[in-house]
């Protein structure tokens, strides 16, 4: 088995931290999906690309900005016009997509190593994210499945809501450790658990 190293490895210290007098406001973890893939369509092939997503991941997306869906360990959401970020527990998603998405339909870009997924879950997750991003994370405006591309200072982040209290954040691998530290620091106020 080949050793793969998460950029978070030195900082992923499991336990409860910071304001333990308060209830643990959020749980922070690294879901480490086996595949993270960008699938992008041409102006006239968006529908075909979304059909490909439905075919491979069994997730149906509409064509509204940020539209997304989650099911189990599978997730997909719109990150830019005609661009989608897909994540799955298993490796090899890019290859499977390449087999059904020819170049004249869209492009498949494997980002499994290039992006690091960070999950924040808990009652205070919206509160913590509001410290970073100028995005309205209220459930009414940012429902389950919805995604957004945004940034915190210099760190580009793609965010998807997985449940009422759970968000997955995809950041560039090289920034992941720095962002993780910032996230933990911001969560000190509410107390946090690394799981």
């Amino acid at each position: 088995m080949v050793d793969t190293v998460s950029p978070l490895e030195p900082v992923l210290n499991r336990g409860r931290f910071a304001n333990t007098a308060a209830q643990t406001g959020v749980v922070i973890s690294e879901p480490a999906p086996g595949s993270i893939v960008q699938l992008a369509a041409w102006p006239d092939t968006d529908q075909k690309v979304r059909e490909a997503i439905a075919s491979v991941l069994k997730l149906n997306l509409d064509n509204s900005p940020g539209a997304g869906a989650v099911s189990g360990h599978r997730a997909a959401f719109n990150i830019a016009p005609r661009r989608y970020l897909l994540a799955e527990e298993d490796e090899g998603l890019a290859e499977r997509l390449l087999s059904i998405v020819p170049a004249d339909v869209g492009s498949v870009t494997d980002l499994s190593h290039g992006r690091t997924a960070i999950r924040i879950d808990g009652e205070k997750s919206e509160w913590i994210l509001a410290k970073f991003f100028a995005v309205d994370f209220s459930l009414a405006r940012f429902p389950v499945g919805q995604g957004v591309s945004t940034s915190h200072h210099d760190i580009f982040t793609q965010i998807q809501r997985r449940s009422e209290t759970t968000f997955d954040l995809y950041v560039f691998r090289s920034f992941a450790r720095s962002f993780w530290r910032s996230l933990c620091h911001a969560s000190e106020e509410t107390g946090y658990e690394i799981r």
Partner: protein
Amino acid sequence: MTSTRISMGGRIDRSRVINFTFDGKRFAGHPGDTLASALLANGVSLFGRSFKYHRPRGVLSAGVDEPNALVTIVRDAVREPNLPATTVEIYDGLIAESQNRYPSLQFDVGAVNQLASRFLGAGFYYKTFMGPKIWPLKGTRFWMFCEHFIRRAAGLGTAGLEPDRSRYERMNAFCDVLVVGSGPAGLSAAKAAADQGANVIMADIDARFGGSANWSEETIDGAPASEWASAIVQQLATMPNVRLLSRTSVWGYYDSNTLAALERVSDHKTRPSFGEPRHRHWTIRAGHVVLATGAFERPMVFTGNDLPGVMLASAGQRYANEFGVLIGRRVALFTNNDTAYGAALALKRAGATIAAIIDVRKTVSDTARSAAAECYAELITGYAVQTTEGSKQLDGVRIQQFDGQRTTERERLVEADCLLVSGGWSPAIHLASQAGAHPIWNEDLQAFLPPPPTDKWVGAGAFNGTFDTATAIDEGLSAGRTASGNTKPRKTKSSVVEGYKCQPNPAPVFEIKGKGKAFVDFQHDVTADDVRLAHTEGFTSVEHLKRYTTLGMATDQGKTSNVPGMAIMAETIGKPIPEVGSTRFRPPFAPVSVGALAAERFGDLKPERLTPMHDWHIDHGATMYGAGLWYRPMIYGLKGETVEQAYVREARAVRSGVGIVDVSTLGKIAVQGPDAAEFLDRVYTNMFSTLPVNKARYGMMLREDGFVMDDGTTWRLGETEFLMTTTTANAGKVMQHLEYFLDVVWPDLKVHVTSVTDQWAGAAVAGPRSRAVLEACVSGTAVDNAALPFMGIVHGEIAGVKVMICRLSFSGELAYEVYCGANSGTHVWEALIEAGKPHGITPYGLEALGTLRIEKGHVTGAEIDGRTTAHDLHLDWLLSKKKPFIGSAMMNREGLQAEDRLQLVGIIPLDNLPINGGAHIVEELHESHPSDSIGHVTAMCYSPALGKYIALALVKAGKSRRGSRAFVSDPLRKRFGPVEIVSHHFFDPEGSRLHG
């Protein structure tokens, strides 16, 4: 003033005692007290000394408008000056100090300024420090001489030198309706909007919601106003669509209904809880805004109006009813309107004797007359306070008959230890003004009112000039409904409000002229005479007046002084106030901590960007170097090695054996799509559509203006797929460049570009033994010259990991770049190190990398500096003549072809001493008077291959100067010496080594 705590009443928690110190003396207060109320309760009347004249000052107001009682709070040795005592909540252990006094507040030597006060009027500095026309302190020299002393004397509090360790945070919030202010109007608006289902944020600058209801004596719907307010606050607190922000000053109103607010999260606590910030800065994007910010009572301008014991009438009422503090035992009132009579009633009920009510009006309303009678006060109409009596606190006031313009001889003394004044009310229209609303003068209220809203805000209550509580509540309810989108008429009944009701309209009297100093702006010691002096000296515009006198420019931003100042100026000019005009309010409404504006960026001012092998580098002794956001190994120094010794050793190892360097930071962009090759032909100066699959090519791109933008290799991985590499520094810029052309210029091209910099870990294995290293660890592909020629690409495995290998060289040696998935980067790196051990593989850092490239004459960002062309860098061989490309139309402009342009050359210091980047190249050496520069050094190193120091430089007509001599001139670092200008190809110019 003999203020004291009332035995009952107030919204303070008398069951708990809080101990604090003021100027080193211990005092006690209760939760709910401000520093001002607690000190007043302890009989303190002297709070500070004034800005310029060091006059004794007490408390004028009870809120954010306070201009006098400014203190310094000391916490953990950090000093925060100029905080109004009226807004500082006390906590156990609070340390407060008075300001602008020496050696003590009671005895301040600075008070000697009062003796020279006639010379210290407006414009004193401008006029006095012009400087004489004769030597030695001619002109500005005199100012520079005096500046030292002036700066020591200027200002109020003194900031400390200790770093502020407090935590500050920024928050983003979104809401349908933001309600600013939580008095009866604001509460009603918030409740109405929330009942409509809107997401509501209600912010109030005070700790306790309720605004004037907290000190009002009215009943609303049968309940005391404070209880009515508490009940609504409790309802709002339980509503999931409502966020309540107390201690929050909404200080800025910006475009698109974006508002800035400062929440003082833990200033009122002895210690913040773990992780809790001191201040939280909110950026609130609101669908609609309800401005229910109330109004500020104005003082009157008369001689000695700054003496401790003179206070705004509403403040006296607030101290009594909200804080349980009686601000004087024998109280006089001086007013031009009926609202002050309500304060008299409150003070009477709190136990004070109302000595007299002095009203400038000859006749007053029956309501006012009844109120005066109810509090057994002598009602003296048609009189005005001429001057105050007392040195450090009020003993009484001298009053004279007043005819609306001036006082007459008939004078009498009214003994009092406190004078409450009311000069009318100014609605707090600051936020509306910031939003662009031009205020409208209201003759009845003698105040500026907001115009009808032109943006998505609506006003309610005293903000609108509505001082009747029932009407304010109605306005709040309507505003809340309107803001939440409900335009149907309201069906609910109006609230029933009982209590003292009056017309707030004042007589148009702002100043009682007399001898002595009558202050308009208390905080900046601006007097009525200063305003007149400004006019005399030609400052007839309100904007000029403001700047010349500094009226309204202190930390209180003229909340109590702007309107009186304008009124006095209008009278002086002989124009009505609205013709004089008003200044536009600017953010912030109240002071904002710099910490909150900066907030925090944990660890450093910028995030760290780490390569997949970062931890390996650290573990193996690398000295890391910040390159943009990236951290890269500079050297892997051995014990006792200097930087130069280390990089020379590393570079020598590459030339003689094999080295390995982390190149993961190189920008990598996936260029995909049916038109990818065509796109690259347009982007690069050379052709890429002819590049076979599994081959790479060096390319250069220009900006549209014809200058070189970036260079790098691009690899063709498939018919429709390329991997473009860029310089580390320009990765983002190139990405934006590509996206711009795809989105805007060539939207018809089917091309996607995606940053894959982080997808790949990259290691460059360089040196004569590099192929041997790969042969020892690569499986699945051959790496010999046939299988992997120069610029060839193969796919294989190293230690079970899929890798992509391209044979290319930045060092000039036989070299390969090995790419793998970033998460496997360390695994592959270690496998390469292991395979290289028999060959003495040496990890090398940026310094050695730079040395190797300087020896080869390769360019980087130091030479591609945005001002150089392909010709300048001798890269014109990359300019295709078969196709157009970005920049091709502009690259041959006359100026870019000039003979004397800076061109890339090599430099050899003839004294064989190091020279620095940035050093100038000159034709003649004059150390004391450097001659004109003909160029500058861009990079230098000690070359182990050549055994001497070498450098690259950009020199005018550099190519034609090869073989000639010049000089290096670096006056800042005192480095001068002869150099020889040579070709930039120092080492292996034929490239025989890289071809193996």
